[in-house]
């Protein structure tokens, strides 16, 4: 640690002590929503963070950032965490800080940077991304939302889906088809448009686990100014590739303050709900056996990951075991969620309200949300097709692919 960084650490510590509202200590906000319960101090804290450029510490000062290097930004983040404080601006801007901003810094014109970046860095402007469509999921480049040249602006028509936070966002970065005749990746452009206009309509997608951040977004003659075309016309595919790289990078950090406590092991949790016999065994013998079976599955899964890692080091060819991990991981997670809800009994069947603890309500959401695991990324059945065909060499079944 250099002297310069040590000085910054001290400065940051002192500034946080003087400016971070005590009422927020140890709190944090979730991905959406619960900011309201933290009261007006949260807004005070946001303006102070923004004035300091700490919302986007590594962005240039002229665009509302802090002008810090990455090691400096890390020091600031550590000082925040140590004080029980947090930088919630990345969360309040949707995709702004993590994805749109970095892409704007790279592809944007000077005018675009000056108009858009400060609002993101201060946490005032929330962004969403209109990428997927009902018929363009994994095959994103087959998208069909059209943008027609109309002088100084484009007119957009089409539907986007899984647009996270669209209903509460101020701006949208959308991938649109600007040249229907070109090859599918060559006729796409990336445009930015305000959400508050007559041609944009959003509809939240409600999942079985309840409210979700996802929306369907409809463009009916929506307007995007030509001055808000990001990158070159028909070069949107390069822009979005870069954007998605930023998405993967953003998977670490940029979360609200968390307790960092390890979750209670499921068999320990079971004892508190179900009770034990005199010999210390779980009072429900049937549940006990299913729990131990699950814990064995989980252990075997972990050992298999370790084995594959060890084998890959010694051999050029990675073993066939890798292909079974998706289904194994899904089974472990889904059964764990089922058992957790079951061992909680009636307390594991709550939907909302003070009768149920956050852990209990969380277990219910995890149980429901986890059903997606055996659907996305190649369903359970598709994985078994792959294993039987590609690994075991069994003949093609009735369906192709």
């Amino acid at each position: 640690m250099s002297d310069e960084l040590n000085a910054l650490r001290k400065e940051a510590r002192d500034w946080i002590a003087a400016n971070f509202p005590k009422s927020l200590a140890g709190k944090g906000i979730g991905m959406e929503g619960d900011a309201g319960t933290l009261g007006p101090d949260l807004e005070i804290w946001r303006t102070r963070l923004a004035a300091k450029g700490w919302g986007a510490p590594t962005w240039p000062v002229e665009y509302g950032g802090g002008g810090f290097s990455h090691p400096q930004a890390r020091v600031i983040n550590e000082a925040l965490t140590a004080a029980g404080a947090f930088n919630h601006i990345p969360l309040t801007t949707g995709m702004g800080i993590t994805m749109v901003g970095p892409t704007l810094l790279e592809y944007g014109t000077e005018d675009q940077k000056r108009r858009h970046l400060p609002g993101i860095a201060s946490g005032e402007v929330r962004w969403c991304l209109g990428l997927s469509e009902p018929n363009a999921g994994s095959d994103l480049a087959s998208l069909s939302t059209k943008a027609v040249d109309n002088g100084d602006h484009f007119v957009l028509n089409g539907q986007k889906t899984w647009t996270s936070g669209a209903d509460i966002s101020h701006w949208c970065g959308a991938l649109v088809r600007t040249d229907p005749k070109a090859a599918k990746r060559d006729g796409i452009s990336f445009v930015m448009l305000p959400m508050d206009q007559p041609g944009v309509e959003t509809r939240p997608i409600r999942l079985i686990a309840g409210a979700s951040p996802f929306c369907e977004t409809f463009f009916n003659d929506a307007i995007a100014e030509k001055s808000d075309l990001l990158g070159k016309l028909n070069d949107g595919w390069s822009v979005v590739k870069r954007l998605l790289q930023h998405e993967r990078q953003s998977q670490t950090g940029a979360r609200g303050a968390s307790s960092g406590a390890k979750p209670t092991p499921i068999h320990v949790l079971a004892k508190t709900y179900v009770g034990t016999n005199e010999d210390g065994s779980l009072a429900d013998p049937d549940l006990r056996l299913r729990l131990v079976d699950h814990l064995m599955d989980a252990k075997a899964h972990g050992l298999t990951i370790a084995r594959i890692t060890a084998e890959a080091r010694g051999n050029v060819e990675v073993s066939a075991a890798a292909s079974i991990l998706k289904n194994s991981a899904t089974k472990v997670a889904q059964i764990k969620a089922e058992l957790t809800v079951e061992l909680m009994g009636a307390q594991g069947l709550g939907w909302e309200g003070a009768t149920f603890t956050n852990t209990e309500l969380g277990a219910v959401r995890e149980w429901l949300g986890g059903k997606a695991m055996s659907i996305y990324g190649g369903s359970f059945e598709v994985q078994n097709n792959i294993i039987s065909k590609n690994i075991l060499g069994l003949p093609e079944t009735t369906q192709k692919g």
Partner: protein
Amino acid sequence: MAALTEEQSMLKDQATAWVRDESPVQKFREMRDSAEAQAFTPATWQAMVEMGWTGILIPEAYGGSDLGFLTFGVVLEQLGRQLTASPLFASALVGASAVLLGGSESQKQRLLPAVVKGSEILTLAADEGPRHAPAAIALKAQKRGGGFKLTGTKSFVVEGMAATTFIVAARTAGKPGSVDGLTLFLVPASAQGISRTRLATVDSRGYANVVFEGVDVGDDAALGSIGSGGALLEQVLDRARAGLSAEMLGTAAQAFDMTLDYLKTREQFGRVIGSFQALGHRAAMLFTSMELARSCAEAALQAIDAGRDDVPELCSLAKCRVGDFLHEMSNQLIQIHGGIGMTDEFDAGFYLKRARVLESLYGNQAFHRDRYARLLGF
């Protein structure tokens, strides 16, 4: 398969080639049909001794190669594939482990070189009833002058007819219900007062019920200190369970290979039956179970080699998970082969029958699920 050292790879190649060329399952069939008294072929056993497999766990000072449990597992897996019968597991793994863990220097010097040479065949005599239950051991060892007098019965002793020395778990204190108060004794099979009865079992291998009627042994027959045999027994049993897991994995893997081969060649309704999605998915799920089971078996063997403190958990995990897979695989072997699988002329039945015995030895899946839960504290 775990990343192997060069020595381990060589032994694996040797075992694979030998089992394929010299000891295919046909040899087991011949042995079964010959009514061989000891339930293994002396020439087969002699070949294993000559290849040095009896010394895999034994330090060089006693004539062995000291290659460890993962290596032993590699050999047992291959033997499990073709159901090769021999006292290798009972003597060179279980017996040798007991002597290595609990034996005095003079006991080691007397027994271990003879185990390597094959002139001494050790076996553990622990269980007394139809279910594996170390805590239930009741065979009494009463202090008499400079030794002990052993009275009681041991059941289903592995290679009990061929053994030259029994490692007998006896009660020197305490009551059945706890392993406290147990002591292990080395008892020559030729000792006065021992009678053994050969058991005819579904897997056609060698087991005996052994009766001890006032068998006198000296103080120097005790393995480890008097009364502390419970912990030693658990350590020996865990090594036995890890070894069995490797053998079971081989037996199940062979059953899987036979089944996969059949799926690719058997035709019905004008197409190979493996093209039916119901069977393709069943094969995929069996393969998934097999890969997970292999990780457990290898982790248990490696943990013993590394002297880790989670050996008990991993050995119960391995015995249970490989046992579950072997159970399902041996049933599917018959089911997917259909009528031919039901005939004695075909080998599938051998695997099914052997599977159930292997599952039962030193604790079946139910025993190890319960033990795993207890080790985790619930």
